[in-house]
């Protein structure tokens, strides 16, 4: 909502300066978007006279002018073809800031001739794009007169954000009312709403075809007929105001409707009465009806829309835009006026369907004064009569649905209990009254009648806000909000694992990324069949919810290659989505690793990040989150993300905790990645069970004094045997004594049979009650050998 300071002063009697008004507006909830005060930025530019304009000695197109200004006569080199002796223009002195170029003007030599200051073009003043010549002003303007006065730009333009509840402040008058309530002055009488009686019966009448349940859609419409008017250009003051707020003046009749829309928040329409056939009627559009609107678009109407029609055709879409065919032009002699009320939701639906925004729609959507049907006619009549003359008919109107007066019973203690602020009853009352509320006071109870222009006020909380915003939110006192009692858990185990895992994974050398929850359907379908589509995606390559986060992270690889980063460890913790999941999503910590992570240091193993490197990281991470990693059960992965032979799921109980391994080369190929990538996924919700434990349950340290013994074995196994099964089998022999089983060598190759592999195992034995005897060690060794041989069809290597 834009308006000018002088326009505001039409409604507000005030002695306050611009800064105070601007600050107050924001403080009472009418937030300032912008203030354009040209009186400051354009102060330096004044009317000057060209005493002499002569050819530049060294340049055909330049002139050397002697320019008389209020501060003396200066020599100015000028390239404008219209610069000539005797003309008056606008002079910009040295060191002034030129708005159109954004530059500070400096003294200079142009082709050897000194130039002090400048005669400016319209473009340089930010007035228009005109730059073919310098600005010429009528010679009647006195030397030294300010540029902004000559061009009537000295009225500051204020732009405020109106929140959707404040339809009443989409008018200069509404804003003035709020400022008056805030103590900045008094609200003047509205001169436009004095009643004018008509002299004849209107030859055109208003009709409406709504009744019963539909009547609220168009509660009423009024108007009148203007005979023998003269439409012409609007007077300068009106044109300037419209221009200042960014509207284009068209003709007096059209400008009046725009002016009243902004001045009083009352949208109007004027029809060229000679182009109408019969009465005008508000009715529902029929199927396939079209209306050519003022913006010269042919609008296809649908059956729920309210339209305005005569006997022949449509002349407008109710509350949104008038029709082109009956629009007023400079030839218009007779005018018929529309002042209507429409249901906000109906206008919204219509406008939305037609994708048509207008100042009228904007106001109807936010709710307008239900009594404006009466004073709106008066306001239009006053202005049309003033500016266009002619004769005025008696008003006409349909029956108008009574709008219910809204009443609120308000307890004045509510300001304290809800607002946390003490305001005395009489002050509460005076604030509300200055905002147009009527109050009957009974002790601490106000019986409040809400003004017709405030349909947003519905209950006590709204009244508290009205009182407080005018009184000042800055006066709300500060309280002590520390809350050291009522200690409770801040994070549930699920959230603790969700957040803690980020720190744990980063601690293993991974960079955290945040990527979209969306992805490309094609890539998504490669990893899952259960994909949730977005009906209205932001772009065609972000059209489904991600069923895995691996493809998004893989995008990093080629992206960073161009920056010559050929290795990386990257992770994200966030949701993945599938229709089959509870709440359609689950949280996953996903990481990828690729390339030579050590970056090819002279002293490091020159090897790419592989399955066992990421497995090592994964196990460290799980351990840090209290997962008993020795109890993990390996299981084949049931998806297409991972390489079927180089990956595994890890399970405890029923829950899959994690997946890890090399990614499926088919997936990588589809993303143009030509090398191997390893990854893990941890389902963070499944870790909650391990984080729920209290730290204080650590068992006592067992300082066993007896000598430990290490024994090595090498077996030949069939290739299908899995190392983890061997380790678990050996551990099971005696969980107390067998302290650790590790594998220190694996060999497959020419020296042994093609379908077998050699695995060397180291077992650490811990005596419990006394040091082992040789015999005991021998027995244990034999037991290990027997178990392995019989369980896995293995043979001992000699």
């Amino acid at each position: 909502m834009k308006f000018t300071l002088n326009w505001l002063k039409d409604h507000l009697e005030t002695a306050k300066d611009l800064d105070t008004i601007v600050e107050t507006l924001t403080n009472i909830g009418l937030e300032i978007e912008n203030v354009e005060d040209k009186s400051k930025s354009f102060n330096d530019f004044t009317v000057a006279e060209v005493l002499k304009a002569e050819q530049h000695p060294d340049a055909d197109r330049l002139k050397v002018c002697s320019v008389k200004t209020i501060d003396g006569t200066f020599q100015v080199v000028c390239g404008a073809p219209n610069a000539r002796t005797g003309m008056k223009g606008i002079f910009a002195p040295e060191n002034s800031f030129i708005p159109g170029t954004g530059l500070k003007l400096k003294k200079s030599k142009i082709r050897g001739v000194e130039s002090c200051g400048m005669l400016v073009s319209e473009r340089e003043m930010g007035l228009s794009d005109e730059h073919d010549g310098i600005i010429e002003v009528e010679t009647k303007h006195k030397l030294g007169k300010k540029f902004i006065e000559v061009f009537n730009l000295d009225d500051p333009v204020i732009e405020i954000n109106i929140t959707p509840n404040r339809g009443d402040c989409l008018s200069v008058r509404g804003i003035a009312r709020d400022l008056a309530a805030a103590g900045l002055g008094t609200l003047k009488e509205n001169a436009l709403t004095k009643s004018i009686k008509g002299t004849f019966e209107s030859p055109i009448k208003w009709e409406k075809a709504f009744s019963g349940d539909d009547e609220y859609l168009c509660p009423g419409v009024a108007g009148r007929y203007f005979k023998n008017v003269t439409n012409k250009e609007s007077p300068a003051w009106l044109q300037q105001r419209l221009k200042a707020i960014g509207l284009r003046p068209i003709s007096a009749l059209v400008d009046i409707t725009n002016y009243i829309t902004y001045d009083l928040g009352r949208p109007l329409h004027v029809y060229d009465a000679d182009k109408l056939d019969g009465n005008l009627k508000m009715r529902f559009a029929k199927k396939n009806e079209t209306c050519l609107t003022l913006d010269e678009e042919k609008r296809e109407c649908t059956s729920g829309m309210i339209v305005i029609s005569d006997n022949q055709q449509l002349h407008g879409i109710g509350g949104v835009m008038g029709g082109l065919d009956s629009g007023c032009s400079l030839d218009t002699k007779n005018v018929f006026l529309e002042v209507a009320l429409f249901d906000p939701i109906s206008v919204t639906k219509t406008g939305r369907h037609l994708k048509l925004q207008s100042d009228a729609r904007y106001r109807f959507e936010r709710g307008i004064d239900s009594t404006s049907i009466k004073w709106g006619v008066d306001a239009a009549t006053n202005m049309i009569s003033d500016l266009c003359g002619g004769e005025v008919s008696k008003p006409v109107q349909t029956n108008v649905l009574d709008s219910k007066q809204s009443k609120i019973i308000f307890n004045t203690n509510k300001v304290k209990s809800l607002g946390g602020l003490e305001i005395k009853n009489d002050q509460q009352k005076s604030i509300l009254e200055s905002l147009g509320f009527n109050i009957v006071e009974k002790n601490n109870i106000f019986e409040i009648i809400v003004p017709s222009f405030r349909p947003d006020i519905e209950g006590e909380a709204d009244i508290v806000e009205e009182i407080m915003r005018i009184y000042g939110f800055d006066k709300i006192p500060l309280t002590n909000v520390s809350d050291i009692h009522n200690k409770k858990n801040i994070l549930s185990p699920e959230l603790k694992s969700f957040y803690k895992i980020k720190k744990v994974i980063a601690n293993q050398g991974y960079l955290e990324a945040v990527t979209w929850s969306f992805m490309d359907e094609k890539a998504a379908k490669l990893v899952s069949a259960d994909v949730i589509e977005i009906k209205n995606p932001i772009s065609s390559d972000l059209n489904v919810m991600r069923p895995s986060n691996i493809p998004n992270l893989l995008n990093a690889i080629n992206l960073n290659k161009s920056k010559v980063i050929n290795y990386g460890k990257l992770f994200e913790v966030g949701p993945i989505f599938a229709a089959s999941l509870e709440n359609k999503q689950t949280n996953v910590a996903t990481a990828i690793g690729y390339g030579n992570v050590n970056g090819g240091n002279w002293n490091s193993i020159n090897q790419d990040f592989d399955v066992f490197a990421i497995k090592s990281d994964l196990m460290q991470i799980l351990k840090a989150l209290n997962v008993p990693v020795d109890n993990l059960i390996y299981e084949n992965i049931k998806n297409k993300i991972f390489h079927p032979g180089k990956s595994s799921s890890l399970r405890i109980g029923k829950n899959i905790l994690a997946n890890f391994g090399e990614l499926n080369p088919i997936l990588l190929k589809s993303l143009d990645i030509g090398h191997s990538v390893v990854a893990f996924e941890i389902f963070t919700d499944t870790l909650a069970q391990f984080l729920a434990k209290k730290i204080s349950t650590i068992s006592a340290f067992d300082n066993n004094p007896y000598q430990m013994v290490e024994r090595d074995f090498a077996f030949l196994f069939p290739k299908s045997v899995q190392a983890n099964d061997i380790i678990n089998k050996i551990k099971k022999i005696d969980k107390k004594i067998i302290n650790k089983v590790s594998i220190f060598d694996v060999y497959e190759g020419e020296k042994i049979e093609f379908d077998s592999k050699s695995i060397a195992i180291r077992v650490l034995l811990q005596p419990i009650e006394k040091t082992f005897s040789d015999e005991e060690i021998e027995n244990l060794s034999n037991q290990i050998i027997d178990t392995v041989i019989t369980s896995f069809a293995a043979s001992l290597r000699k």
Partner: protein
Amino acid sequence: MSLPVDAVDVKKRIEECKSLQDVESIRLEYLGKKGLIPSEMKLLGKLSIDERKLKGQELNKLKTLVEETVNNQKTNIENKEIEKKLQNEKIDVTLPQQEITDGKIHPISQTIFSIIEIFGNLNYSVEAGPDIESDFNNFSALNIPPHHPAREMQDTFYVQNSDGEDNVLRTHTSPVQVRTMLKTKPPIKIIVPGRTYRSDSDSTHTPMFHQVEGLVVNKDANMADLKSTLITFLKEFFEIDNLKYRFRPSYFPFTEPSAEMDVAFTKKNNVLKIGEGDEWLEILGCGMVNPKVLENCNIDSSVYQGFAFGMGIERLSMLKYGITDMRGLFDLNLKWLDHYGFSPLDLRNRAEV
């Protein structure tokens, strides 16, 4: 009665030895089975008690001296040999070490950690909810009527739903407030950080972003508590004690009264400085929970009241960490992630060591 050797001479002889063999031969000379000291010891029996006592002490003294001197001299000779060897063991220690890649926490996560810590200290607990939400939780329960502009396709993402009803990608984290109120009896005191979605994409808007919301419902929480809570948070978050701020009226369908908070800033050489200056930056929206919202969530609004607030985590991150390009936050540029990321050990804690 005296010993046949001078202790000082013996010590000197041992200390002059150049090799371990030389030291050993002197040791044998004195301490060996047939050495001087054992031989003399054997003769002690022939002496009178007084003489035996005296001579015995002297011999023991000499024995200790020889033992110690021999051990010292052996160590000396060994160390000299090691030192000589070390001279030939020089390596180029200026060769570059192996670089371990640093892991980093994303600035959005770091901001969320800060927020959780600050509100955790005020006894808020953290809640979460799904990104795909029902129309009721995201809009209707929050008093956003069916014709509200926010529901238009150009603002809200809709997803398919097998049971025919439209689901939305939550446009704010407020539906978690609704879920919490529906399942919990007051008092409620929660914050909700999380992913949110709006169909918007330009230099300052991304289709996905993060919000944190707070909700307090009890019998007496009021606007003064709300204002104080937010100021406490902002001062702590930005680590500015005399933060210049503005608390001004605004409008949201789900709160009444509603307010927004701005913080002052200055911009010099393209660097934002928060907390002082004459320009204002909107940082959060808030208000007293609209009684209609309480009723929609089965909470008796004649008994309970409360406040709610919400803010954008990207904006907080950018302001606090000086990030100028919002889209960088969602980029996979490893250099960016490394540059703006935080060490997992870098906790935002005033008691940090």
